[in-house]
């Protein structure tokens, strides 16, 4: 039945998971608060980027540096990984065995690593064009904003591996469930930030 009040963001595990159900509200609210503060950090980096869009110091700008095809593939990878994490969350909530859960997490992790790999490749190719962050304010702003998102994705991947390690040791117990719920919030949040990045930085820059 549909809940009357939704008492925390992200997938609610519901009455079938009494161990995680209690305590989830406080923990997930707290994590959501943290994500809001992280959103402010990104927002300010976006504002900084916007104000430095023309500070190219005679050097290359977005049109010279961004490869739309690579960005499109990265975007698909990350978006798909958000979906697969959703599938993992559903396995957690409704599944009776942890096999599918681990499988979906591995797919998510793989997609995340694909995203990171492509992104690092993009950065390296920009470097090789002589357009590293030390060359202009615009490039500094770009390399401040986008790699920060990448660092967050990397942290999420590490966290995912740590949770899977905990699963191997303890099975899917209470702390693992609460960790997966929080990682879910984190992962979807990062996809939201990426929507802003590809829209403002890449598509905006290439228009």
């Amino acid at each position, binding site marked *: 039945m549909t809940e009357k009040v939704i008492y925390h963001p992200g997938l609610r595990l519901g009455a079938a998971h009494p161990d995680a159900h209690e305590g989830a509200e406080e923990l997930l609210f707290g994590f959501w608060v943290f994500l809001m503060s992280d959103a402010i*950090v990104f927002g300010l980096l976006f504002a*900084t980027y916007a*104000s430095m869009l023309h*500070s190219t*110091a005679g050097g290359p700008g977005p049109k010279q540096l961004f490869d739309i095809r690579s960005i499109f593939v990265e975007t698909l990878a990350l978006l798909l990984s958000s979906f697969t994490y959703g599938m993992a969350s559903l396995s957690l909530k409704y599944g009776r065995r942890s096999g599918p859960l681990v499988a979906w997490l591995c797919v998510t992790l793989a997609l995340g690593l694909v995203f990171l790999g492509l992104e690092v490749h993009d950065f390296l190719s920009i470097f090789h064009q002589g357009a590293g962050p*030390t060359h202009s304010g*615009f*490039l500094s702003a770009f390399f401040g904003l986008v790699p920060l998102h990448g660092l967050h994705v990397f942290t999420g991947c590490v966290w995912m591996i740590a*949770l899977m390690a905990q699963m191997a040791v303890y099975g899917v117990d209470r702390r693992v469930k609460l960790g997966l719920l929080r990682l879910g919030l984190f992962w979807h949040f990062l996809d939201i930030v990426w929507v802003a990045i590809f829209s403002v930085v890449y598509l905006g820059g290439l228009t």
Partner: protein
Amino acid sequence: MSLAHFIFGRLTPDDLPFWQMLQHPTGANIVNGIIATTAGAIVVLGAAVTVGLITRYGKWRLLWSQWLTSVDHKRIGIMYIVLSFVMLTRAVIEAVLMRTQQAFGLDGGFLSPNHFAQLFSTHGTIMIFFMAMPFLTGVINYAMPLQIGARDVSFPVMNSISLGLTAAGAALVMVSLDIGQFSTGGWSGYPPYTEAAFNPGVGPDYWIWALTLSSLGSMMTGINFAVTIYKRRTCGMGFFRMPLFTWTALCTSILMIFAMPPLTVATLLLALDRYLGFHFFTNGLGGNMMNFANLFWLFGHPEVYILILPAFGVYSEVFSTFSGKVLYGYRSLVWATMAIAVLSFTVWVHHFFTMGQSADINAVFGVATMLIGIPTGVKVYDWLFTMYRGRVRLTVPMIYAIAFMMLFVIGGLSGIVLANPSVDYQVHNTLFLVAHFHNMLIPGLLFGMLAAYHFWFPKAFGFRLDERWGMIAAACWIIGFVLAFFPLYAVGLLGFPRRTVAYFNPAYVPYMRVALVGAVFIAAALGSLFVQLWISVRNRQAYGAPAGDPWDGRSLEWATPSPPPEYNFPVLPEVTARDAFTRAKDSGAAYQIPAQFADITIPKNSALGPVLGAAGALIGFGLVWYLWWLTVAATAAAVAAIIVRGFARDTEKVIPASDVEREHMRWLDLVASTRAVSRLRELDAANTGLAAHAIPETAQ
């Protein structure tokens, strides 16, 4: 890179405080060198004495298991306040040094410009980040969970981590006295002066990493407090039944959550510029130094409201408790607090009216700045009306509160003067501004925290503080503040710039001499506080108040023994109105035996806080001195500690119901055998913590 270079980074003997003095013994170098070496020696000696005493009395195990790894909000709160008193001592000494320099600064003085610049930079940085923030965090940590009838904050281990990170930042600032030097860029650290092009040394790096550690700690604290207040209020305590102090704690924590990110961004972007050659704020290649001022004050303005709101909360408690009267205008106080919290994000440009933006922008922010004075005015009237027709008791907290009311309003008025951009163009960065913000911080924040210290000390330790030395301290603070800062208003209007080591206008000298006298009073005030503590500990039997309610308190924290048990309440209280404890005392429902005792589950101690604190300090130190091996190793250790913590499963302990019952009954027996005292005997030895509570004839 040679091996020595790898191991020692950019550390050289030149970074010791006495090296310059020995290499180039000029007069100026000797004077400055002696001061610097003395300061460094005090740090080393202080650390050695502390370690020595702990070893001598065999208290390492106790220190570790009862304090450093504790996740109890009460212990963490006390440790925060201890830290802030240590840092207050250093920062007051720095202030006295600066006042002395300026009193004799006509045509030179005895401090070098570099030394003076470090002094005002460390003074500001320490007072804001390592005195004021820890003090208010400690006070909120101690009192708020008790006030809302909770057992602890929402995230106790994170609480301990916040403390560790704050202490790590403070450690970096202290180490800068012995190794290297601190930033000379003020507490605001503006580029391009703090960029590598102009300041390649370690100073700005110390500043950056100390602030980063502290701001991470504060951000986590903000999250912790906000979630606690949202989710852990006891049964029946709706938002509009919370004590005012808890309301201000909530708004403070929301400010922390949203104000810390801009600081993190500003300092980390500056770090990217300095370490990796980025161009966020540099002079050339597209850098925009004005964005730093913008980002810094996006943080800096809400920060000053973070500093003042808890003090406002304390004053609300003090005014109502020591007038023996319900707080006047509760709802208006709540709305005023929320208005201040929201408006505090709309005024930041007033810190840089002169930076070059158009008059329209300045006007918008000038109007917003004037608006924000209104809710504070509402609060002052509410406090006045609380006192009116009350039975006012002039205890130490009340003295601070009354002094606050008078002095803070003056400072607020000077703020309204400054809010006008055209006037601000005349007085920006003069001593007028310095007088204004000290006028807000000292009678506002500091008196509030000292009042809180005096007010809640008996709750935390089971005995009151000596009232006479408390009065002496308060008097010295008040006289000292007035003498030290009111002349600065005048001399600022006469054109004396801030952060100036020397001056050439003899007209300034009398003002500077008076200000120095004020500084001496302030030093005496600090000394009196230490004397007060010493005497109080010595007389703790006579001042004992173990029954828990020495002031006839109104809120739930007073409904516990002094000190409260680790789990705060044997059974979580149920609340039906504001001033819950007064209600209970009025209706004879206080000091009850619960119908049933249950086992209580609370978190176990955790080493994660001290471990991450130590790791943070080492990461910072490594980054400052280019000891990359240290930074990498400490980062790996920190990450490993967090991941290992994820595997922890045995994180709670159970206190059996029988123990809870025994402790509670012991307290109730104590209360039964305690003589209730009226407010006339509040300061006698007869007051052991039980208030003779007359059931009032009227509802108010």
